[in-house]
């Protein structure tokens, strides 16, 4: 960009064209007070503190809104300016309480700074002071308070919430003296659209918005969020050995939009009293699965030596008796790359088995399988920042704003401010669907029909990229032919989406210069998961949307380090860097490096491990930082498997539901207590830095494993996490250039081949990793379980914004738990009405595999016939209901489709031994017509005479009476 030169207080300064005068002033190193300006926000010009004198311009323009021009002559301070600034500040303080000494924000209060700078006078403030400072303080939010009396109406919070967070939960309301920052309808924040991210609190220049618990940190440590795969950089504010504050670090392009509620307020689990601090060994008199008393009572504390000996002996015994393949190792996507590397090395070299896997099996196994086949690389092809450059964003099967909130913000910003078009395919009306140009609310499990239908339209309208297809891809012809089976009418019928919408989606996507597809578990967690992903790959190749900025294939990885765990080879078929265990050359390389003969047999996947425990093929399991009792489909089955094991070791930070079944529990450190690296969803390897000392006797995961390994005769000697990464770099070409000293400034995106390589923001630039992109023929296949009369609702499962997976971390966060303390099931108004279910009723949800109780939430987000439940709660485990059928290619379970029925819990209880009630409960209106009723009974029913009915069927609970009355109305008995 062209540079512009101007003079500021007599000094010449050059800035890029398009800068503001304030930018130039700052660049000149001159201080000008501001209250409403922030570099991340659009120029606003409300406080007028930043006024300057510019030669040739009338009045005193605000420097934050005035663009620079060549040759401008700017004076930043004159006596007049000083006087005006002082008055402005005095006016602002005039209506502000004098409580600075006890204000939590005083240390960082910009108003205070500015007041000092301009020299506000007590006498003039007193003169302007209005008596009343009695606006009510909103303390409803669990994380922060809003005191309007301290608000100076700078509008930063309003603009942050709109421009950066994309939520618009607050705005100015009323006017004149009554102007107020306010939610819709003046509701308390807790009941408003606010998502509790705290972004506004961070930017508020005064104490108006301030955190509930403010303890000033002694130091800040830069690290990476341990929750989701976005991988936001953050600063942990530490006081003593406690995390007391979290702020976003502006480290790289990952989270220019700040942090979500989990990252900012969800890290107090680290210092939670439930943390395991000493190794535990199961008592001899406490058999597994008996659960007779408090879980912790089943164990006794032990010292590390004893516990590690136990583990080594237990594993050695199984290995000697039944062979190494009778041991399974489950690694963790919560752990660092270094931990994962050591864990898989332990399994392969120390134990001698490829039975190592982790939870990627449950989320993106299908992505890895399909993308390897189509492109040769199983990861996101472009970067998160590519969202800013796309003309069209197609989000399918991802509730991005809740599950990858910071990427969600980026999408919202792209749509609101860059004019990007948004297509959303999701059975639910999620937040993004509401702002979408096209929302395709297809039936669950019909993604292939939908995508093929769209592609057929693109081809028919000649909108596909012939050049890309012929020059860079292969196997196009059979694919093209296969689309013949998807004419609009058929697709409309299969997916339930109106053909106009399919056509519209095809037009929008097909015509886009740069389009990206972002998807999540809605695509992968199906029996057709791998094929679904292949269909996504086909769409991108067909339209040539790969290898360029603003395009790409974007599987949104779930866990903070699930990408890294895959990269590190915590998978049964590959060594680090996706090098196949079946390849003799690769094996030879690792055998030489690790000094052991290595198995060429692919190991068992996580889902298969649980199945084969029942066949006695797996006898011991070493689980690191995972909680399969809640995360596996058909959780009851998984729990049974764990109880059946000869030996179970669990290494974790809490006594999770899985750890409660263990023989030995080893206490590990959390992310805040160790060094290492996480690799986020855009393949960026980022540094995790130790912020506090390990709690109690906890130890770092890789060190624990190394100790067990040494006891089993395979010592591993590393001095630090960085040391481990050196070994990784040597053996893993795609990590070849990853060294700690290169990661200090924002990390590197793999493949990074060597020390000089700068990393790869965009994959498949000129050619695909596998050479040519491969089209696959994929066809629509129904989900394994379809709704029936007995189980009429299709249950979809997933996550919500405020919680994480099985909740062992997020349920232990005060704020997160306060916001969302209870599980619930989302059902449509129509179904609720039919079932006589009201908001907040306790309902029982059953599938062919089990029953859970939860609260009903009526919502327009789900369609009639569908329901949604998150799987974060142990007392209402959605995975008791889910179907364990697997995708045959990637062995990923179908978490997204299960058939269930819901019923009022009181009704279910009552109906158990009451044929009449169960008939009413289970059947559509009109059932009583077929009953042979006595005249008294008939009249009791007809008149809804509950007292008479009670005489006949026994006493009924209050809620049940209400239900029965409503239900009897549907019967229309009078017409009989």
């Amino acid at each position, binding site marked *: 960009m062209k540079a512009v030169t101007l003079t500021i207080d007599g000094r010449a300064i050059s800035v890029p064209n398009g800068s503001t005068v304030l930018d130039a002033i700052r660049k000149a190193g001159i201080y000008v007070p501001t209250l409403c300006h922030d570099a991340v926000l659009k120029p606003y010009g409300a406080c007028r503190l930043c006024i300057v004198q510019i030669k040739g311009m009338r009045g005193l323009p605000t420097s934050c809104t005035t663009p620079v021009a060549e040759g401008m002559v700017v004076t930043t301070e004159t006596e007049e300016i000083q006087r005006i600034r002082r008055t402005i500040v005095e006016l602002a303080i005039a209506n502000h309480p004098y409580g600075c000494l006890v204000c939590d924000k005083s240390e960082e209060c910009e108003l205070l700074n500015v007041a000092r700078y301009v020299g506000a006078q007590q006498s003039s403030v007193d003169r302007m002071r209005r008596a009343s400072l009695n606006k009510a303080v909103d303390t409803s939010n669990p994380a922060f308070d809003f005191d309007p009396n301290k608000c100076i109406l700078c509008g930063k919070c309003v603009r942050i919430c*709109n421009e950066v967070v994309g*939520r*618009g*939960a*607050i*705005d*100015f*309301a*009323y*006017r004149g003296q009554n102007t107020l920052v*306010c*939610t*819709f*309808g*003046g509701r308390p924040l807790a009941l*408003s*659209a606010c998502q509790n991210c705290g972004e506004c609190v961070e930017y508020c220049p005064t104490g108006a918005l301030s955190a509930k618990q403010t303890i000033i940190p002694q130091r800040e440590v830069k690290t990476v969020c341990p929750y989701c795969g976005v991988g936001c950089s953050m600063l942990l504010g530490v006081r003593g050995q406690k995390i007391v504050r979290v702020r976003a670090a502006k480290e790289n392009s990952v989270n220019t939009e700040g942090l979500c509620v989990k990252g900012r307020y969800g890290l107090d689990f680290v210092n939670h009293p439930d943390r395991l601090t000493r190794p535990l060994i199961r008592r001899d008199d406490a058999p597994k699965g008996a659960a007779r008393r408090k879980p912790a009572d089943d164990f006794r504390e032990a010292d590390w030596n004893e516990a590690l000996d136990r583990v080594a002996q237990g594993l050695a015994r199984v290995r000697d008796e039944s062979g190494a393949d009778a041991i399974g190792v489950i690694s963790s996507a919560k752990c660092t790359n270094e931990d994962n590397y050591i864990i898989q090395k332990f399994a392969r070299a120390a134990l001698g088995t490829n039975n190592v896997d982790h939870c990627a099996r449950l989320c993106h196994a299908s992505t890895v399988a399909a993308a390897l086949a189509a492109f040769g690389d199983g990861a996101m092809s472009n970067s998160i920042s590519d969202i800013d450059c796309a003309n069209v964003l197609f989000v399918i099967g991802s509730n991005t704003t809740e599950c990858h909130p910071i990427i969600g913000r980026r999408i919202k910003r792209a749509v609101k401010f860059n004019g990007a078009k948004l297509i959303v395919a999701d059975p639910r009306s999620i937040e993004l669907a*509401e*702002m979408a140009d096209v929302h395709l609310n297809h039936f669950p499990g019909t993604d292939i029909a939908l995508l093929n239908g769209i592609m057929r339209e693109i081809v028919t309208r000649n909108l596909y990229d012939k050049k890309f297809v012929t020059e860079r891809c292969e196997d196009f012809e059979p694919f093209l032919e296969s689309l013949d089976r998807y004419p609009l009418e058929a697709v409309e019928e299969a997916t339930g989406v109106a053909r106009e919408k399919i056509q519209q989606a095809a037009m929008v996507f097909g015509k886009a210069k740069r389009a990206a597809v972002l998807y999540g578990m809605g695509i992968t967690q199906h029996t057709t998961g791998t094929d679904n992903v292949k269909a996504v790959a086909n769409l991108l190749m067909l339209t040539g949307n790969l290898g360029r900025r603003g395009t790409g294939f974007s599987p949104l990885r779930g866990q903070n380090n699930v990408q890294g765990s895959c990269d590190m080879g915590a998978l049964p078929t590959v060594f680090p860097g996706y090098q196949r265990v079946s390849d003799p050359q690769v094996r030879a390389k690792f055998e030489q490096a690790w000094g052991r003969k290595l198995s060429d047999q692919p190991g068992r996947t996580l889902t298969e491990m649980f199945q084969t425990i029942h066949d006695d093929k797996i006898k011991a399991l070493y689980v690191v930082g995972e909680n399969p009792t809640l995360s596996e489909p058909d959780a009851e089955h998984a729990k049974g498997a764990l109880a059946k094991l000869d030996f179970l070791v669990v290494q974790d930070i809490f006594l999770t539901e899985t750890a409660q079944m263990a023989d030995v529990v080893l206490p590990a450190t959390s992310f805040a207590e160790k060094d290492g690296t996480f690799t986020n969803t855009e393949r960026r390897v980022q540094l995790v830095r130790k912020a506090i000392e390990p709690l109690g006797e906890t130890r770092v995961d890789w060190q624990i494993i190394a100790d067990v390994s040494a006891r089993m005769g395979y010592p591993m000697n590393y001095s630090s996490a960085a040391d481990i990464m050196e070994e990784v770099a040597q053996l893993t070409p795609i990590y070849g250039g990853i060294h700690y000293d290169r990661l200090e400034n924002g990390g590197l995106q793999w493949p990074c081949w060597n020390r000089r390589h700068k990393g790869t923001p965009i994959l498949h630039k000129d050619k695909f990793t596998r050479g040519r992109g491969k089209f696959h023929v994929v066809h629509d296949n129904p989900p394994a379980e379809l709704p029936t009369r007995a189980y009429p609702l299709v249950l979809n499962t997933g996550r919500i914004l405020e919680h994480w997976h099985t909740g062992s971390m997020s349920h232990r966060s005060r704020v997160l738990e306060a916001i969302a303390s209870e599980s619930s099931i989302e059902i449509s108004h129509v179904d609720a009405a039919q079932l006589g279910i009201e908001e907040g009723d306790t309902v029982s949800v059953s599938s062919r595999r089990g029953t859970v109780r939860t609260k009903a939430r009526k919502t327009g987000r789900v369609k009639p016939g569908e329901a949604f439940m998150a799987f974060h709660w142990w007392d209402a485990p959605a995975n008791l209901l889910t179907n364990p059928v697997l995708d045959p290619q990637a062995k990923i379970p179908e978490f997204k489709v299960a058939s269930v029925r819901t019923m009022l819990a009181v009704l279910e209880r009552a109906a158990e031994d009451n044929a009449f009630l169960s008939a009413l409960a289970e059947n559509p209106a009109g059932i009583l017509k077929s009953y042979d009723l006595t005249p008294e009974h008939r009249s009791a029913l007809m008149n809804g005479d509950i007292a008479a009915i009670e005489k006949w069927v026994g006493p009924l609970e209050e809620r049940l009476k209400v239900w029965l009355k409503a239900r009897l109305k549907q019967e229309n008995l009078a017409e009989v």
Partner: protein
Amino acid sequence: MRALDVKGFIGLEEAIELIRSEFEGRPDELIPMLQRVQNAIGYLPEEALLEIARATRLPAARIFGVVTFYAQFRLRPVGKYIIRVCRGTACHVSGSALILQDIQNHLQVAPGQTTKDGLFTLETVACFGSCALAPVVVVNDSVYGLMDSLKTRKLIEEIREKHGAIVARAGVEKGDRNGLRIFEG
């Protein structure tokens, strides 16, 4: 005596339908949308604002801000008869403050409020442009000039009586949802 007009309002669902059918949903249609809904329902219920938010894709909080910024918008239901007392200079010097005070006592409502029976809403206005007739009181769209406390009281009572009669005769309470305009017989 002149025509007595009763405000007739439509229901919320109809109003929502109206937002969908009469507007494209462009953000710059916000004010006309709000005016249209208020004209039709008499005020701006939250559900209607949320629907406008959906239609325009503006944040609901922004719309709330706009509604509370302009004096013309109401968030609470209004009575069938809106009594506006002018507080402009001309009316003020002719004693409009006394009239206002008297109505407040008489109806037991402050400006901006509606009587319990839902019949009257009291409002004040800066100037009606009928200064020659000061002090001025306006009921719905009818202007009454040269008023004083006594006359205003009488007017109010007259309206109350006539309204009662009309209701008794024509069942207006039912019919008024369809925007019926009733004139005295």
